């Protein structure tokens, strides 16, 4: 469980194979990423 708190997954690096994120699209890829920001 400690590991889960230590590593915040931001998603696959091959997202062209999984979803339309890698590239120019202006999208968040997950709740954890929102946690990275100051928003």
């Amino acid at each position: 469980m400690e590991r889960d708190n230590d590593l915040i997954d931001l998603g696959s690096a091959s997202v062209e194979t999984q979803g339309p994120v890698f590239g120019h699209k202006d999208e968040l890829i997950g709740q954890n990423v929102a946690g990275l920001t100051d928003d």
Partner: protein
Amino acid sequence: MMVSLAPGVTFCDVDGSRIFLDLNRDRYFSLGPLADPAFDALVRGRRPSDAERRRLDILAEAGILADLPFGEAPRPCRPVPIDRAPLDEDIAVTFSTMRVATGAIAFRLAKSAYRRRGLPRAWSRFRRSKESRLSALRAGSASELDELAYRFDAIGRMVGSLNHCVPFSLAIASACLAAELKVEVVLGVKLRPFQAHAWAVAGRTLISDRLSTVSQFTPIAIL
């Protein structure tokens, strides 16, 4: 022995946040609020506290860190300087239909292979291709790089390069290698929101993109 980043793991600093890429596991990730200061101790060469040492052990168990005999302290990915981007200039470039057709086929194949196999396989395949030619590679002339940039720009519009930046960059970089020109493929990331992008640079010339696009991204891995 030195605690280093495990092979295939790279990172960069973006606006005060560290973003990591594990190429072998095909993941982008960041560190939590307890692990990040522990990793910071490694980067700065500071002796970690007992609590930080436990966090570093967890990162090692997760395959992020490794005790390597000739390892180095973790360092962020180096910057990739760019002096010019032909696509930002108004250059009259001519290229043969045949060269456009062969480039388009190469890009289509790269897209298809990337969709099937993902980044780790595509990256290691390009690495092998580059290493096998390394001694023969030379710096490209401005006219050679202009031709590549404009020809692949036309190919990208024809075949569709939007959201296919990795295979597009690998295709144009492979065309450079075929012409025995030095080239690097760069993966970069940005935050707010998180995005990743790939581009190809020959020497200090950006050949796959416009500067306004890549300048938003911080390099995280270079091949």
